Each structure stands twice: as C-alpha cells, then as structure tokens.
C-alpha cells in the first residue's frame, strides 16, 4: 500500500468535498472578518487605541474562526462508517489524521491567512507589516487546526458537544496566542518578529508530530 498515494487521494477527496460545499467553507471566513471588524464598534476607532488592540483582536479572531467547522472534520466520516474503514486500513490512522488536518487547514486556515490584509488594514496595521503578519498566521492557524482536531477527535461521538470543543481547546491554545499576538505587535512596530516566529515554528513542530498520535488515539476510542 503506497502511503503517499493514499494520502494524496484522501487529501483530494477532502478538498473536493469542501469545494462542493463551498458555502460551509465560507462560514469561518465570514466569522473572522466580522469578529475582527466589530471590535472597533465596541470600543473606539481611535487610531492610537486600535494600534494597541489590533494584534490581539487579529489573533483572537483567527483562533475563534479556526474552531468553527471543526466538528465537521471527523463527524461525517464517523457517522457513515468511513472513519472505521480508515482505522482498519493498513495506512496508520495517525498518518490519515495528519493528512485530514492539513486538508482542513487548506480549506479553513489558509483562506483565513489570505484574508488577513482585508482586516489588518482597517484594524490599523501598516502595509509594511503584512508580510510578517502572514508569516505568523500561517503556522499559527495550522497549529490551531492540529490542536482543534484533537478536540474534534475526542468529541466526535458525542451527540451534542456544543461548546465543549472550544472549552477544551482554548486553554491549550494560549501559548500560540501569546506568541502570535506579540509577533503581530512587533510587526506593527516595524520589526521582523523573529523570536515569536521561532516559537510558533516550535509549537507547530510539536503539534504536527505528536498531535496525529493523540488524534488517532482519540478517534479509536469512539470506534470501539
């Protein structure tokens, strides 16, 4: 069994399914834009004040948007039995999980990153800071996808998990939130956020290597 060929097929399947239901894929993006741009209405659009808040708002919005649509990651496959098939196949479930998470990020996280200029400018970021922001948000949202997938896997068999998933995930997401927002702050000041980028890279390596193991373990619980 060629693992890469299987992975390629799985990824393609996820992307095609997402493309067919492109309306669902839009929800996190719309949420991202709305949450971020609603903030100035709630506080004050005053430039100095916004500049202090902008990094935080950007990252909180990215985090919350990443959590939306996570229950749809494993849910449908669990319900129709294809998850069981994936678990029984010779391809390790953790590898399958890794590929699914990457697929989820390509559909949710990557568009989010690409949309960042649309909300960053109104929030007060300068155009020069945009490359740094994108460099931070790419690994950051990918981390959120891995972390969120662990939560999604743990709650996949629960009928009405409601807000349980965010409740489980939010405390674990705080380190990346802290580093990412700090990086955005540095970007706003015109510096290249090397330090935060290293930390985000480290967190992502950790999540991408250990995460799939946890996800596979969690999925197996519901399949027994």
């Amino acid at each position, binding site marked *: 069994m060629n693992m890469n060929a299987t992975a390629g097929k799985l990824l393609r399947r996820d992307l095609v399914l997402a493309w067919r239901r492109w309306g669902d894929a839009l929800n996190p993006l719309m949420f991202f834009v709305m949450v971020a741009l609603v903030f100035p209405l709630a506080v004050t659009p005053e430039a100095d004040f916004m500049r202090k808040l902008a990094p935080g708002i950007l990252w909180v919005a990215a985090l919350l948007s990443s959590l939306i649509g996570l229950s749809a990651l494993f849910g449908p496959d669990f319900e129709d039995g294809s998850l069981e098939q994936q678990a029984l196949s010779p391809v390790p479930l953790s590898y399958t999980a890794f590929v699914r998470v990457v697929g989820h990020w390509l559909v949710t996280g990557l568009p989010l990153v690409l949309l960042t200029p649309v909300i960053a400018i109104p929030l007060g970021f300068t155009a020069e800071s945009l490359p740094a922001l994108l460099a931070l948000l790419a690994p950051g949202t990918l981390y959120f996808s891995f972390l969120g997938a*662990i939560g999604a896997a*743990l*709650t996949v*068999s*629960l009928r009405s*998990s409601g807000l*349980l998933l965010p*409740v*489980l995930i*939010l*405390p*674990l997401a*705080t*380190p990346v939130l*802290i*580093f990412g927002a*700090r990086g955005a702050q540095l970007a706003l000041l015109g510096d290249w956020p090397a330090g935060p980028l290293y*930390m985000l890279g480290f*967190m992502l390596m*950790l999540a991408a290597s*250990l995460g799939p193991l*946890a996800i596979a*373990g*969690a999925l197996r*619980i*519901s399949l*027994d």
Partner: protein
Amino acid sequence: MWTWFHKLASPPHFYRIGGKLLPWFGVLTLLLMAWGLYGGLVLAPMDYQQKDAFRIIYVHGPSAWMSMFTYMMMAVAAGIGLIWRMKLAHVVAHAVAPIGAVFTFCALVTGSIWGKPMWGTWWVWDARLTSELLLLFLYLGYMALAGAFDDRKQGDRASAILAIVGVVNIPIIHYSVEWWNTLHQGPTVTKFDTPSISWEMLWPLLVMALAFKLYLFTVATWRVRAEILQREQRSAWTRDLK
C-alpha cells in the same frame, strides 16, 4: 514489590486498604493543619513590608503547589489507565480532578485577595495567577469531557488523552505566560514569594504543604472508594462488605 502494586490495582484490595488508611490520613491532615495554622498565624513574625497580610501565603502557597501536584497525579494516573488499561487508575484520576480544581480555585481567590491590599487591585495579571487560571480551565475541561460520555469506558479514555495533552502543554503555558508577563509589567513588580524567607516564616509553609497533601489523600480515598462501589456494584466481592 510488584505484587503489592498489582494488588493495589484490584478494586476490592484498594477499597479495603483505603478504608484502613483513612483514619490515619484524616487525623494527620487535621493535626498538620492545626500545627501549620498555629505556626503561620501566631508564631511567624510579621513581614517587614506586608505586615500581617503576608500570612495569606500560608493558604495561597500550598493551594497553588497542590493544584499543580494534583494535575501531575491526575495525568500520571490517566496515563497508567490508558497504557496498562487499569480501570482503577482512571477512577483515581477522576477522583482527584475536583480536588485539584478546588485547590486551583483557592489559589486564585487567595491570590486575588492578597493582591488587593498589596497592589491595589482585585486582580493582577501576574504570571502565576494567570497560569492558575488556565490550569482551572484545564481541570474543568477534563471533568466536562469525562462526564459527557454515556459509555464510561469511552469517557475514561477520552479524558485521559486530554489530561496527557494538557500535561505536555503545562510547561509551555507556564513559560509563555511568564514571558508575556515580563513584556507587560508595569513599574511595580508583583511577586507572591518573598525572596529570602526566614526559617520561622518558612516552616509553617512546609507544614501546611504537607497538610494539604494529606488532605488530598484523604478526600481522594473517600472519592475512589465511593466510585469503586458504584462501578463494581454487580461484583461478588461487594456482597461481603461489613
């Protein structure tokens, strides 16, 4: 030595031994609490800067330490339950979770109360309090997940994975919150520990820490015994209990 360990993993054995140890745990807890409180509230001299308000450390410190110790214990128990498929280990993890949450809650409340006379506000975003807050969320998440499953075995294993994911994250959370705190610190440095603490102030703290630990064992044993009976009610050994 391993036979002892294996025996302990058997619910009837644990139930019996726990029952025998309970009076000791309980009495020791009360004695140590009394001794520690007397030492901290009466014997220890007043702090030069904080006067008598520093005495809050005698509940704040032990609560904070035990909140972290308990989480470690919970994660280890969960790991043992997951790896060796030992049901009793999962019961231990479920038993200590609310105790750890209470410790964390007390650490937060006493820390907040301590902050008011010292630094003027009811809440300070210092590294330790913020970490404790996140730890409370981790405890609550664990308890929520464990309780969300109809199938008890699934609940055990899912919450165990969450506990392990949490324990891996805790050092990272601590470090990142520390770092975040140094970035945003105002001119006043908030510290909940006194740097060089004299022995007369220190020993009640150690006694209280031990007292809290024994409290954990006492309450955990009650909770484990109760859940053992509940899970094993159909087993034959429960019929022979006096």
